[in-house]
């Protein structure tokens, strides 16, 4: 019997997830047609019972469902993800606050880079990781010296890490010689020599120059300080510290359809507001679940939707959602009371008193839940 067809035909109104779970269940238990129909009917009834009722103060419930377990979260900022290996990423309460705040700069930006099929090996992943990770001169130098006699700087290169990264000595030299500079880099028996163009350079300037060269970008994408290769369920992927989604997507071997950044604002810039909404949802929910706390996804969903309804990210707080409310009294009762009142008076604002706090303030029923409707009784009908 084709359960899928049966389900499609009988229950259009059910959400997709419930339908596929229905089909799975039927297949697992190999139900007869009558049994299948009964199951469908039961589920439809159950779905009706599960639906939201009009008037439900869904916002407050979601807000509380997120922040109540937040009291039990750890404050510890760092945690080494994935046993001893991996990237240190902000977690727990600080991370949740960061997401909800829609911070412009997040503490430890990171990306999950997925790979195309051709690169699904450890070597392939490493190769891509090397393309992504920013390599600076200081990463490949074992020793640096200032030759006071000849007024040159000398670097000993770490051949092992050069091999690991996939850089040759010539590439290092040519990279050092890119752009405007006050020196000439040359190779001399396994050593890199920096010869200043200026003849009479002071030692202090030489020191400065050395630091500048050490900071020189050799390979990879700027801003990505770490790229760690991990394997989960037989799939190789790369986790990074530092983000530059736009550039990473163009790297050979990276699967641009799945690669994401953990920074909602960056996701908005690259993929748009829907991706941003999904990032807030995913990151927020994962942060809570990682702490071993059980919170329904729908709560974070509502937060993500509220933050992004207007097509741009708005923070939860004074400078975002709460500060842009229509009601003067609602704004005034949150933060910066006096300013909201004076500005309202200049503009001649009118508070229509159509939501919660405003009505609490003036002692009227709040238009939520049972307060939305009134029951009248007509004794004459009896």
């Amino acid at each position, binding site marked *: 019997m084709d359960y899928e067809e049966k389900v499609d035909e009988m229950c259009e109104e059910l959400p997709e997830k419930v339908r596929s779970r229905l089909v799975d269940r039927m297949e697992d238990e190999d139900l007869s047609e009558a049994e299948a129909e009964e*199951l469908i009917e039961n589920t439809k009834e159950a779905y009706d019972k599960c639906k*939201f009722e009009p008037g439900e103060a869904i*916002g407050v419930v979601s807000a509380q469902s997120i922040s109540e377990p937040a009291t039990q979260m750890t404050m510890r900022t760092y945690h080494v993800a994935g046993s001893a290996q991996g990237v240190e990423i902000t977690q727990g309460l600080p991370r949740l606050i960061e997401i909800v705040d829609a911070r412009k700069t997040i503490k430890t930006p990171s990306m999950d880079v997925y790979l195309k099929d051709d690169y699904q090996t450890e070597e392939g992943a490493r190769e891509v990781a090397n393309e992504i990770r920013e390599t600076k001169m200081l990463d490949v130098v074992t020793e640096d010296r200032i030759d006071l006699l000849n007024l040159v700087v000398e670097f000993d290169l770490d051949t092992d890490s050069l091999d690991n990264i996939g850089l040759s000595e010539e590439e290092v030299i040519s990279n050092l010689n890119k752009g405007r500079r006050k020196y000439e880099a040359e190779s001399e028996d396994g050593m890199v020599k920096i010869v200043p163009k200026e003849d009479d350079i002071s030692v202090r300037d030489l020191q400065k120059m050395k630091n500048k060269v050490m900071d020189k970008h050799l390979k990879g994408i700027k801003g990505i300080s770490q790229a760690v290769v991990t394997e989960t369920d037989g799939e190789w992927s790369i986790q990074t510290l530092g983000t530059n989604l736009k550039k990473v997507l163009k790297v050979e071997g990276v699967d641009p359809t799945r690669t994401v950044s953990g920074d909602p604002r960056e996701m908005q810039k690259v993929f748009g507001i829907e991706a941003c909404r999904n990032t807030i949802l995913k990151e927020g929910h994962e942060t809570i679940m990682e702490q071993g706390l059980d919170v329904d996804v729908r709560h974070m969903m*509502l937060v993500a939707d509220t933050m992004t309804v207007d097509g741009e990210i708005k923070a939860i707080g004074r400078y975002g*959602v709460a500060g842009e409310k229509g009601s003067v009294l609602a704004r005034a009762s949150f933060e910066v009371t*006096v300013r909201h009142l004076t500005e309202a008076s200049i503009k001649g604002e009118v*508070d229509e008193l159509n*939501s919660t706090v405003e009505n609490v303030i003036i002692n009227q029923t709040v238009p939520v839940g049972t307060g939305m409707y009134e029951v009248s009784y007509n004794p004459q009908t009896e």
Partner: protein
Amino acid sequence: MPHKIQSIEFNILSPQQIKEMAVAEITEPDLYDKSGYPAEGGVMDPRMGVIDPGMKCRTCGSSIGSCPGHFGYIDLSRPVIHVRYVKTVYKLLRATCQDCHKPLAEDEELEDMEDPLYNLYLKKRKKCPHCDAEQDKVKRQRPHNFTLGGKDINPREIREWFEDISDETVEKFELEGGRPEWLILTLLPVPPVTMRPSITLESSQRSEDDLTHKLVDLIRINQRLADNIEIGAPDFIIDDLWELLQYHVSTFFDNNLSSVPQARHRSGRALKTLAQRLKGKEGRFRGNLAGKRVDFSSRTVISPDPNISINEVGVPEQIAKEITIPEKVREDNIKELKSLVKNGPDRHPGANYLTRPDGGKKKITPDNCEKIAEELETGFTVERHIQDGDITLFNRQPSLHRMSLMAHRARIMPGKTFRLNLCVCDPYNADFDGDEMNLHVPQTPEARAEAEELMLVQENIRSPRFGGPIMGCTQDHVSGLYLLTKEDVEFDRKEAQELITQSGKEDVSISSETVTGREVFSAFLPDITIAFESESGKEKVIIEDGEMKQGRIDEAAVGSFSGKLTEKIQRKYGSERAKDFLNSVSRLSLEYLNRRGLTMSVSDLDITDESHEEIQGMVIEAEEDAKGLIDDFKEGDIEQIPGQTVEESLESHINRRLGQVQNSANDVVGGDLPEDSSAVVMAKSGARGGMVQLSQIAGVVGQQTLEGERIHRGYKQRTLSLFERDELSPEAHGFVRSSFKSGLSPEEFYFLVMNGREGLMDTSLRTRKSGYMERRLVNALQDLKVEADGTVRDNRKVIVQFKPGEDGVDPAKSKQGEVPIEME
């Protein structure tokens, strides 16, 4: 819902309005005349309202409490700028021409501009497009002075300038709250005395409100300025006084302005003026308007009572006599109410007040209660004591979620504490180490109905957070059931009948001679079929048609947050049955434990010498390995972990190695301790504690951490002075090799305490941070609700979600967030 107030408009008061709403001009700096009466024309002018009991208001004739108070006004000798509008004044000065007072932009340009006032303010034009006048530089000199081309311009000149700005310009600038010249005050409203009452101290000395003090200062300066103008004093004196007047008016509005010294009380305390009254947590908005104090509430310490229902709360008689419910006298209740009134206010089921239909209210006293009872008629309202079964609201702070305020039925009891069932401790997050809780009594039938239908404890068993039960058996309840449902527990007929009946199930009679523990438990199950993994994990729990077949009941079956059985019963048979189940099962468990006994002692955690040696051996081995790692590190051939420095890698390796000891010690201790040891029962059933705690007591305490790492803090290059500098060994960085039972060495104890201290700091910091996050989240989301059409909208009526949660499923009604798919 019909509302009395439809909307509130915010505007700027014009001088005319100020004059119209005022009942008196205030000119005198003296508060009281020689006879001690409020002086006419003074700041406490009797026309502005009454604050003394027994006096009548000169304006409206009402007495204290019913007179709202009336405004007065002060005629300022020279105009001053309203501090809170200085920024707007500045913007206007920069956005309009100094000669023709038109906006500094072409008409068409203005038309397309977004927020023209702000944009023109940002870019001051050099030349007026209308009259070609050269524009001087307008500069703001904090806090409230302005210069035009380097020369001061005073508020009077600014006011004249603004008077000339046309209404069209004002409209374009979106200043619809009033004329711009009203931002410069010529008249100052004097708030009514009712909002700044004076208090009479014991020494019959009057102590005035901060605002009154401020107003007195203000009037004095105003008067002096007027006098000086009249006698034609030199300009610099007048300017100084004018500046002083400006200062007083400014601090009258806000006494916390940057670059303005605070106005102070004689004692040196900064005055609390208007802005300070509104601002902040204890301010008018958050303290009095968004949150209000209520009547009919009480608070006391809580204590447990396993014999009352989860729906109930034990209320001390003393409180029951204080808190009342108004009840209208009808034909059908006149008899009962009469007897209540007859009991008077001091005997428990009594009454405190009586209201006649004409509004007359009478206090019932022990002396007049008999007489009043005689006079009782239908239509009267009696405020009677709360009695058993009345709906009350019970709350414990911090109110983090909606289950922090639930409805309970009152049950009047002797004693002085609120009593609550142990199963509701979890949603309230309550324990009995001195916690206090609040009790409120709803006063209207509507409120009571709502509380009963929506807020009753049983209606909140399923948490909206994750769609599972948030209430359930705790601690000894769990241990008891775990022991009861053990394989070989048997009772004879009498014992079994006693257990079941005493647990509140009176309609079961046992016929068979021997009864197993599982059969006893099954007597409390409704007709359900369910199978699930138990917490102890050995055997699956299988229940068929209300008969328990195998497995043991523990945390996973009946605990809060996890309770699979509770969840199933609630979903299939509703809240009422779930409540009964929790009530009876928790009592059953305690009845059984009372007969069996459950205690714990140190000897419960005695392990054999072999095990002890085995653990010590593992510890030594691990320490040795750690030392090996350190040696490797010193020689520079440690395995480096990608993304970490050599030092970090070493730490990771050591941590991992030492962590292994902990795990294997858990296993050894777990394997050694007898299954029926009380401590193991508690740990395995999930009642309290876990194998980690047991092995810390009997085996090894293990690594202490600080900020997620081994302990590195302390003295220079070492944690304590008894270690070598730069020592990396486990014992020098917080590895505690002793067990709690064998006792800790001083340095071990010190490390343990460091760890404990970190935990304390972490908790206190966390509560603050998450508290603020909650406030922000609630504030941002509070207007969202599910509309009648099934969409989620905010208060602008913008659709936030077409279907709540994408599929319209309410987590509070779901099974762990899913729609249940079940055959029955």
